[in-house]
């Protein structure tokens, strides 16, 4: 075997190792029996996995993250679906500008978004931390919602709405009767994508955490600064498997990859 034929599989191996490696290390570390976060793990035990469920602050921040991911994504969809509909069905003046503005949170680094929200919204207007987090996560997820829902609207012919109207439906009724059922897959995909994005979000949340109000990733960083035990690794593994499970289920039942 010459160097050339070896090069491709070797490169592939290095890339995959780089992508999957850290994840495997974390998973291995979560089953450690030792007292500190270390690799290779010392022994095998489930004690750190069990401990995750006993840490009070993890429970609270998990609740917060879950609320933000579900509530923020739902809010983004409630705004995003009509926005996508308008962008795809009407020739709006400045549609491209609107599209760009809506996509801005993807382009602008999260650190800047978080700082800007803190400095110009939260502090001057005295917005509560929970509300600020909710608004920030909604804004973060909105681009994904608009993008994914727009894609499925663009694939849906618009004359079925006219057909529904001529059969006696109102315009709004036609939207609920023939548009929504046909973009259901896109909406669910957008929800899952938004949920995962929000749940794993760090930089924006970093600026908007306050006493007693933290998202789970922020809480994990804070925890690690004080206690350096494998429970953070255990929690990370659990979250990773949760995400993988959701995406797999979505692909299996919805054909997730068609939409994103």
């Amino acid at each position, binding site marked *: 075997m010459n160097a050339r034929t070896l090069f491709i599989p070797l490169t592939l191996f290095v890339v995959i190792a780089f992508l999957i490696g850290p994840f495997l290390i974390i998973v291995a570390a979560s089953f450690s029996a030792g007292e500190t976060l270390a690799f290779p793990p010392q022994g095998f035990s489930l004690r750190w996995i069990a401990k995750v469920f006993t840490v009070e602050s993890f429970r609270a921040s998990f609740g917060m993250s879950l609320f933000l991911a579900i509530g923020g994504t739902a809010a983004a969809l409630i705004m995003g679906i009509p926005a996508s509909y308008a962008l795809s069905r009407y020739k709006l003046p400045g549609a491209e500008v609107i599209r760009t503005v809506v996509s801005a949170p993807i382009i602008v680094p999260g650190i800047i978004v978080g700082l800007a929200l803190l400095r110009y919204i939260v502090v001057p207007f005295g917005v509560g931390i929970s509300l600020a987090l909710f608004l920030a996560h909604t804004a973060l997820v909105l681009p994904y919602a608009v993008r994914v829902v727009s894609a499925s609207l663009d694939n849906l012919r618009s*004359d079925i709405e006219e*057909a529904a109207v*001529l059969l*006696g439906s109102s315009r709004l009724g036609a939207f609920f009767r023939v548009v929504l059922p046909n973009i259901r897959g896109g909406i669910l995909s957008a929800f899952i994508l938004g949920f995962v994005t929000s749940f794993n979000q760090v930089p924006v949340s970093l600026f908007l955490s306050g006493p007693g109000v933290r998202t789970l990733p922020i809480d994990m960083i804070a925890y690690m600064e004080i206690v350096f035990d494998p429970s953070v690794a255990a929690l990370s593994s659990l979250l990773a498997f949760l995400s993988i499970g959701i995406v797999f289920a979505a692909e299996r039942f919805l054909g997730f990859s068609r939409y994103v």
Partner: protein
Amino acid sequence: MSDQSYLSLEKLTLAYGDTVAVADLDLDIRRGELIALLGPSGCGKTTTMRAIAGLLPVKSGRVRLDGADITHVSPNKRAVGLVFQSYALFPHLSVYENVAFGLRLKGMRGADLDARVQQGITSVGLSNFANRRPAELSGGQQQRVALARSMVMEPKVLLLDEPLSNLDARLRLEMRTELQRVQKETGVTMIFVTHDQAEALALADRIVVMKRGAIEQIGSPQDIYNRPQSSFVADFVGFENVFALEGGKLKANGHLYDLQGDVPSVAGLAWRPRMVALGEGPFRGTVRGTSFAGDRREYLLDTPLGPIKAEDDASAPVHELGTELAFDLPARKAAPLASFA
């Protein structure tokens, strides 16, 4: 309401933004008539159809249906059905639910609903397909679902957008027969839009030829085919040699030519290729192209009048490319044109 004007368009003007698509259109349609709106793309036929359905707001003028002014009645309350060119079936619903859609909105439920839907599906020969999704049907079957979906609503007028254009030759004949049967059985007033003169001639009771947002000619298929009134209609129905007249002489390329026989005092004359007499006559031309068309042979001649399209029997001797030929444009065979554009 007279029977002459079950559906009437009065001085109808339609526009997209500032672009006027149809101007001052007047049209009266009798109850139970099968009308073809015929014309090239951009002539306003589809626009007119959409306005009758209420999908396009009317800029000025009126639409009357069955004695009522429906100009500003919203499309969901007009009792006008439309079979879309793309069929526009609801992809998430079965054939049965597609057909039931409008009836459910009317509040029909239970046995009444089921009977009507079954009857609608059966009438288009799809009773074995009731539970299929549109994506599982052929184009022809989808169109029949679309037809049934509109017809179960018992519309006062059924509009059809290019109903035969997406079908292959065999299905065309089938669908044409189907439409005639539906029209005969239900007596529904039908208007269909087409750019294909053969379709219009075969199916319609009356043909409305449109050009640039206005009606060019209205008449029976025989009228339109044999007696076009304008150079546009003549050209559209296959009179491929169309000339203006000036003082009883044929005008071509800025010159005037004498014609043999009595020349009527009209704006122009038009000849089908088979009306051109080859081999004798006052005109001369060179064979520029020829093609065999089964029962006949087609010729393209280069002449001082411009290009002339002619036909000969397939059994007649062939005129080779480059041959110079005498020909005649006999005035008595020509279609007289009242207007020449």
